[in-house]
């Protein structure tokens, strides 16, 4: 089982041994809301104190829209005691991180873990620097440290009415040994002024003036542009390239061959673990790029090339042939199996039984900013700019390709126009570096077209599951069988195995690694998005067969008495059931749930879940969705409302949580209504937003977000409204008298 928590070294230990260094600035992507303040002093890797007494925070995550630049800044500013208006941000430097033993703790922008993983490290760093500044003030002035207090970018003397600015003190503070974390007193929740406060996003204003600088916006003197055509069949190789057509074209186009190969991995792997079990290897096909003066010229010139591909084995594969292979797999024994009780007897003794098969198609995460990377390379240095969700791995990939030491490589992380998992794979960086290596000292910007982005993505896996259920004479579920097969290397099937509901007799089986014509990639919501709606839909089928209100069935199944006493991690399972039941009850109350009240043609569905990838997985929130729909006499589907209720622990910024859950609903509805990638002859058949549709404003329902009071570390929010919204939607459709949806995208008529 792929565990996403890493065998992390103690962060606290790493900071205690870290020396404070004053360094000269390097320009990184980020949001400079404070205009051109002269940089001054870097302290403890996290903070730069500028000469105008403003501060710049280094954000060890990629901004993909989740507002991580804002929320991590709230954590740092809370303990550092700086005013919110004095804060600007830039992205971390992966070389600094890797050279200092992962000083930023969690840099991969994956698994909705940013706020959770950095909640302590960012606050500790802020507090350490505050203490260093206080000590520096004491040394500088001869005052007693105990008479000093930090506030609004100054160290104040409590009684003398005097103060020293952080900018004055910073050069001295860097020589103070940082206090260890256990010597620090972090603020308690009732002392917070920024945490819990819906402060404006750091990028609020640049976002409305077109001033956010994404990877695609990099512009360097002498820069040339590359457009790319990759082998349309994954794993294919270049057989023949005729470039004679380029000679007459403007923009001085030059063709470049790009070798496919192993790029790296799509998520961090703990030291000493087998990377192929913990993450998915990222590989690319052969490709051809054209480099020209402008991107438009380069793109046009691609059409003048004559390219012959050796399409390899995948040209004989399709999504239909894969579905067949998965079905055959389901007819046989599956490699992973957990069971309880005696399913065959329960099925035999059942008052009623039910069987159903569910499928989930391939999907492309499709961030709106097409993939791009700019690289400037010579024999002794590589500088690369890109939005990547896994910048540490990008740095390793660049170093390996160029043969340079990582100190000679600078990876400048940029804001990304969406990620949704797609930017966890650094294939476009691997390609841009190969191109730039052929043009020493010339910056090259590689930009993919939308067609390349859709057809050469990394895809949510096509998944098929077969269910069997039994009801006893009281209408209780006496047996539950789920057998799921999918086609990826990384283990996504936990969505079926970690169902929080317990049945007296059950069998859950799965298999994976069926040869797929498309490569697997993370997509917002990951395994739960494939499996949760299937589980809830089949559960809803059984509830209806029993003539029961699904909400009552969930309520009953989540009662702690239903957790079998011999369950592994029994205590964790009890806490989990109680938490989910509490969230369920609240969601039902807020929705004024009454199964007897529904009008003709309209329906309601509900789902409740966490995203516990394994027992005790610490960062998942608990949430429920209620979806209201109407099905017209013409079979048209209207989604009237989506309500999300969530307990996500401590909330750093309630408006950010709300925005993430609202956006997740839209993403879920696109998955449910439109997203389907199909393959024929090894090629993806969709090419742009006309045949790979994204939800638009006229289809967006009103969304209600209920954030329940929570404590402890912040829990996941980025992916959390997805799986439950799809699940509640398919059940609402059945409730409205529509068909039982057993495959996505949803088709009503």
């Amino acid at each position, binding site marked *: 089982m792929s565990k996403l928590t890493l065998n992390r070294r103690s962060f606290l230990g790493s900071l205690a041994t870290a020396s404070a260094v004053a360094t000269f600035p390097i320009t990184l992507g980020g949001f400079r809301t404070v205009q051109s303040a002269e940089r001054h002093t870097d302290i403890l890797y996290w903070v730069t104190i500028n000469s105008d007494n403003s501060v710049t925070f280094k954000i060890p995550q990629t901004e993909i829209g989740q507002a991580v630049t804002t929320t991590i800044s709230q954590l740092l500013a809370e303990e550092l005691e700086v005013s919110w208006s004095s804060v600007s941000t830039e992205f971390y430097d992966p070389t600094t991180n890797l050279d200092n033993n992962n000083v930023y703790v969690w840099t991969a922008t994956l698994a909705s873990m940013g706020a959770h993983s950095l909640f302590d490290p960012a606050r500790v760093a802020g507090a350490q620097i505050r203490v260093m500044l206080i000590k520096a003030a004491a040394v500088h002035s001869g005052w007693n440290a105990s008479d000093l207090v930090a506030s609004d970018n100054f160290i104040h003397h409590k009684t003398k009415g005097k103060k020293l600015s952080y900018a004055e003190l910073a050069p001295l503070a860097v020589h103070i040994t940082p206090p260890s974390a256990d010597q620090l007193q972090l603020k308690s929740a009732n002392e917070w002024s920024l945490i819990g406060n819906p402060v404006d996003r750091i990028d609020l204003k640049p976002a409305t003036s077109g*001033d956010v600088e994404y990877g695609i916006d990099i512009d360097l003197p002498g820069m040339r542009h590359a457009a790319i055509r990759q082998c349309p069949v994954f794993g294919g190789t270049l057989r023949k390239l005729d470039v004679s057509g380029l000679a007459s074209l403007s923009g001085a186009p030059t063709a470049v061959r790009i070798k496919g190969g192993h790029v790296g991995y799509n998520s961090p792997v703990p030291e000493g673990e087998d990377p192929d079990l913990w993450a998915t290897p990222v590989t690319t096909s052969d490709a051809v790029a054209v480099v020209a003066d402008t*991107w438009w010229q380069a793109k046009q010139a691609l059409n003048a090339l004559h390219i012959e591909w050796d399409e390899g084995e995948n040209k004989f594969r399709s999504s239909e042939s894969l579905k067949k292979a998965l079905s055959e797999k389901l007819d046989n024994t599956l490699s992973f199996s957990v069971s309880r009780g005696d399913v065959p007897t329960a099925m035999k003794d059942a008052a009623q039984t039910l069987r159903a098969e569910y499928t989930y198609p391939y999907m492309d995460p499709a961030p709106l900013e097409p993939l791009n990377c700019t690289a400037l390379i010579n024999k002794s240095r590589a500088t690369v700019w890109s939005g990547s969700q896994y910048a540490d791995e990008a740095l390793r990939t660049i170093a390996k390709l160029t043969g340079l030491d990582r100190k000679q490589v600078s990876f400048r992380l940029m804001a990304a*126009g*969406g990620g949704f998992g797609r930017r966890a794979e650094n294939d476009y960086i691997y390609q841009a570096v190969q191109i730039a290596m052929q043009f020493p000292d010339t910056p090259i910007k590689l930009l993919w077209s939308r067609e390349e982005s859709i057809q050469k993505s990394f895809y949510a896996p096509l998944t098929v599951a077969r269910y069997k259920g039994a009801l006893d004479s009281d209408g209780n579920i006496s047996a539950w069988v789920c057998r799921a097969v999918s086609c990826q290397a990384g283990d996504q099937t936990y969505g079926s195995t970690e169902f929080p509901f317990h049945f007296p007799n059950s069998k859950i089986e799965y298999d994976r690694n069926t040869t797929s014509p498309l490569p697997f990639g993370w997509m917002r919501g990951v395994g739960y998005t494939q499996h949760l709606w299937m589980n809830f839909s089949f559960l809803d089928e059984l509830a209806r067969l029993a003539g029961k209100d699904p909400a009552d069935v969930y309520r009953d199944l989540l009662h702690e008495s239903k957790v079998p006493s011999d369950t592994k991690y029994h205590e964790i399972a009890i806490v989990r059931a109680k938490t989910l039941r509490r969230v369920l009850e609240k969601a039902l109350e807020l929705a004024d749930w009454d199964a007897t009240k529904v009008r003709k043609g309209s329906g309601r569905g509900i789902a409740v879940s966490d995203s516990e990838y394994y027992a005790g997985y610490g960062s998942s929130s608990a949430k429920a969705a209620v979806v209201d729909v109407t099905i017209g006499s013409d079979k048209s589907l209207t989604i009237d409302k989506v309500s999300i209720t969530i307990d996500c622990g401590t909330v750093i910024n309630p408006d950010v949580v709300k925005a993430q859950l609202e956006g997740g609903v839209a993403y879920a509805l696109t998955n449910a209504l439109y997203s389907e990638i199909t393959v024929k002859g090894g090629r993806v058949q969709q090419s742009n937003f006309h045949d790979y549709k994204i939800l638009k404003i006229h289809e967006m329902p009103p969304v209600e977000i209920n954030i329940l009071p929570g404590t402890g570390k912040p829990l996941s929010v980025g992916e959390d409204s997805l799986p439950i919204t799809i699940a509640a939607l398919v059940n609402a459709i059945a409730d409205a008298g529509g068909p039982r949806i057993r495959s996505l995208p949803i088709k009503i008529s």
Partner: protein
Amino acid sequence: MIKMRLNKKDISIYVDGQTPLLWVIRDTLKLKGTKFGCGAGLCGACTVHIDGMPIRSCSFPVSGVNGRDVTTIEGLSQNNDHPVQQAWQKHSVSQCGYCQSGMIMSAVALLNKNPKPSDADINREMSNICRCGTYVRIRDAIKTAAEDSSQWVQL
């Protein structure tokens, strides 16, 4: 040579007339606020105004703007304070932000034509894609801007 009035300045440029306006704006004129999303006029990230009309610049040859007025997000206001920009800030619409220049340009064009749009008007005219799904707030921000529209002067 193509002459146009770009963000209230007269300019002349020498480019292939078939080049889509988007690439002239971004790569020749170095105005990066207008975005590339699909290259096929489907997503609206590249929306600019030509003589006040919202146009998908990725699919509009630059020869078509000869002698015309082009406005990009950079020309919408001096200080990022057009009522639509202010409404966007008030509702904290943006997530990744990539589509928002195009969204704002589309919303301004809608409000210029129809200062009090109904939900149906918004649904019909706002056909841009936001992959982050900020649509609830886009609708709210358009309504806020519409309330203020008596106080703003058309571009």
